[in-house]
């Protein structure tokens, strides 16, 4: 019973943090002149949750975050894009983390890359063309870079969270 309460409390904190990060990101867009490329600050929380609370909670957190921030800051349609990116990214991260051969950096980079891949796939289905494929290299490289940045911050956060058990 007590364990469940702790988990619920942490989940609330993480959801709030992820929402705040989504908001901060809309305030200070990480604009580098490439459409569709952003830092994905909220993914930081998803990565940390994946490590501290496990894949199931990270999934729940990710979906909650996307649906809520979608309704608050963006349109219904953007939820579709975000879900595709977020779920694919989380699935890949969970698998890589489970394999144990990658550090937070690698897991986060893969997450960044597949986040973009998921969104691109939805874009292709929506526009019904493969001509967006020329955009793949840009998104892949952007995914590696943003994923690495998120990985660095996640690593620091995990170090400091260290011994605290969240689940």
């Amino acid at each position: 019973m007590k364990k469940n309460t702790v988990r619920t409390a942490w989940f609330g904190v993480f959801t709030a943090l992820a929402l705040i990060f989504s908001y901060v990101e809309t305030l200070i867009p990480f604009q580098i002149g490439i459409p569709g490329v952003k830092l994905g600050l909220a993914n930081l929380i998803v990565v940390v949750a994946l490590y501290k609370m496990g894949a199931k909670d990270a999934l729940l957190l990710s979906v909650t975050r996307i649906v809520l921030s979608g309704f608050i800051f963006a349109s219904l349609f953007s939820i579709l894009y975000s879900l595709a990116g977020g779920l694919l990214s989380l699935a890949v991260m969970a698998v890589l983390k489970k394999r144990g051969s990658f550090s937070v950096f690698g897991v986060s980079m893969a997450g960044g890359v597949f986040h973009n891949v998921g969104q691109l796939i939805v874009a292709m289905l929506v526009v019904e063309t493969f001509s967006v494929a020329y955009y793949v290299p840009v998104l892949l490289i952007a995914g590696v870079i943003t994923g690495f940045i998120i990985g660095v911050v996640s690593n620091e956060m995990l170090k400091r969270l260290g011994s605290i058990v969240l689940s």
Partner: protein
Amino acid sequence: MSYKENKSPEEKASGFKKNDLILALLVLAVSGIFFAGHLFTSQKNAGVVEIQIDGKVVETLDLKKERAFKINGGTNTVQIENGKVKMAAANCPDQICVHQKAISRNGESIICLPNKIVLKIVDGEEAELDAVTN
């Protein structure tokens, strides 16, 4: 799962692993392949060059056929070669258009100001095909 395992061995190994680097390089390699593929296919499906004289389109030519010809009553010579088009000769004093590199990509243009000639790459119907091929 959480406490003990996270602390002792994992803590030390929390740095950048070799596998992470391999992953990053792999992704870069894949994007390189995509980029190369794009360069290759976009060259193959080279579009159409539009020749404008004094603002009017006088001719649109496929870039697949190689040829060289004079336009505007002989003042300029246009050359199409390897899916690219360039101004081979012009009678103007500055020769800027002649020195410009051959163009092949959508939206690129060569302009000869003294003779009011514009060579512009447009892709007309080719764009549709570009999306469907493969």
